[in-house]
């Protein structure tokens, strides 16, 4: 047996990883770094923080950031509240139930965001499905529509992102040892108390992970806010697109990207570090 093949598991792993690593460095890490460097360049080519100063001081862009974060927080809360019961039923129900919930969650997930948003345009628009259901009940005025409103964006985007929450939660609820729940029940805890004091605390990793994921995807999302919110209700991602392609203000587009990236990294780096520590 050639010595090289026995002594080189480390080399072997490196060789397997190399193509993917090279691709991600060249096509992902470097472009993002190059973009970040653009954010520090003034029109005359000198170093400047003007783009960041404008991002913070301009009331309009501050509003864009605030709206993006506000909507993301709401969506995270909604997907958690709707997603947990669904995930619980999937994790603790029969295999058949679990399969149907997976189908229900994964089919929309794998459908283009453009199409899912299209559906919401028909539901939320003037004379849309929602208006047709609510008007006869006298709940809303004629001409009611949620298009071009923040509420509309929340409703549509929460549906788009719910699958991510449910899939993350299913995994972590399944990982909770069912015997602990049974022990709690045998020792006299009611179903609600067991849920609140055993199941939910033990599935906290999934609750945190799912919330971070949904929040990050929400502040980054482009298609749904652009189509449902429209041009008068800009969100961060749409604003980046505008700056880069319409006003051609690259430093400003880059600064907004840096802000978005920073927000996502602040969410995920601590989690990665924690996970690493736990693994030892």
């Amino acid at each position: 047996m050639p010595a090289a093949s026995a002594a080189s598991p480390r080399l072997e792993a490196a060789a397997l990883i190399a193509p993917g690593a090279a691709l991600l460095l060249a096509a992902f890490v470097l472009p993002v770094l190059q973009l970040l460097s653009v954010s520090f360049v003034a029109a005359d080519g000198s170093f400047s923080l003007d783009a960041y100063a404008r991002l913070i001081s301009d009331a309009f862009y501050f509003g864009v950031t605030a709206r993006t974060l506000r909507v993301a927080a709401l969506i995270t809360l909604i997907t958690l509240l709707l997603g947990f019961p669904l995930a619980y039923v999937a994790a603790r129900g029969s295999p058949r139930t679990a399969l149907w919930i997976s189908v229900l969650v994964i089919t929309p997930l794998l459908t283009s965001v453009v199409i899912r948003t299209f559906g919401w345009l028909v539901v939320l628009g003037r004379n849309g499905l929602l208006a047709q259901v609510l008007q006869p009940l006298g709940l809303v005025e004629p001409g009611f529509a949620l298009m071009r409103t923040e509420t509309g964006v929340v409703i549509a985007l929460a549906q788009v992102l719910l699958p991510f929450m449910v899939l993350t939660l299913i995994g972590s609820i399944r990982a909770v040892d069912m015997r602990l729940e049974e022990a709690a029940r045998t020792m006299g805890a009611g179903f609600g108390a067991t849920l609140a004091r055993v199941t939910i605390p033990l599935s906290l990793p999934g609750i945190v992970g799912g919330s971070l994921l949904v929040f990050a995807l929400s502040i980054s999302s482009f298609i749904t806010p652009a189509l449902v919110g429209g041009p008068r209700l800009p969100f961060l991602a749409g604003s980046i697109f505008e700056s880069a392609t319409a006003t051609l203000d690259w430093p400003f587009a880059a600064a907004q990207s840096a802000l978005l990236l920073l927000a996502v990294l602040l969410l995920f780096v601590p989690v990665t570090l924690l996970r690493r520590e736990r693994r030892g």
Partner: protein
Amino acid sequence: MVSATPRVWRIAAIAVVSAVVIYMLAPLAVVIATSFSASQFLVFPPRGLSLRWYTEVLSSPAYLHAAWTSAWIAVIVTALAVLVGTPAGVALARHHVRGATWWSALFLSPLVLPVVVLGIGLLSVFSKYFGGPSYFAIVIGHLVICLPYVIRTVGAVAVGIDRNAEEAARLMGARWWERYLYVVLPQCRTGILAGGFLAFNISFDDAVVALFLRAPGIETLPLLIYGRLEFSPDPSVAAVSTLLVALTILIVIALERWFGLGRLAH
């Protein structure tokens, strides 16, 4: 366990789950329903019943050309993603890689980092060094967002591979590439298939990366739909969307059959 669940909770669970089911499916159902409309305008509920918008889509050069563009981009992206992602998935799942946590974080980061930032970063690089956006730029962008899925599905399968078979092959004198070709890869088959389906689906459905990296004249199917939604869509958009939903359902069935949908939860 379920039998011990009090009735109130069970009713509450059924109510919440049904509400969420309606919430999840309503937008897709509405699109499918309006596609069979006989009316000229996009209205719900649809007026009349006809397949005219399907005939319209299938005889429209704009739709067909965009579909063709999306399809060949997705095929190339899938092939490359499988080629690059499979070895990485195997390595991260089976070998003791130094700094494995950070490598996994890097490989999976396109899942959580903003796609708009990737799009604009690539746009900036391609404008500066490669003479502007192009089909090639779109393929590269899609490759980045598809790679994590292949790495994850292959990794999920590779973790469970029997190490003894590989050791046996080694002892019997198989060279390293024979070991991979005849022992490791066949055992990863389902993960590779699932990753490939996901990669194809994501590339075919993407509008964000393509929106940033399209050169004038490049039109993929999601871009075409997005463009029409910004103005006034007619029911042909619903018809083409319904065809895409049908394609998605086929992919979901394939995933369940060969990989298991349950394994996509983590």
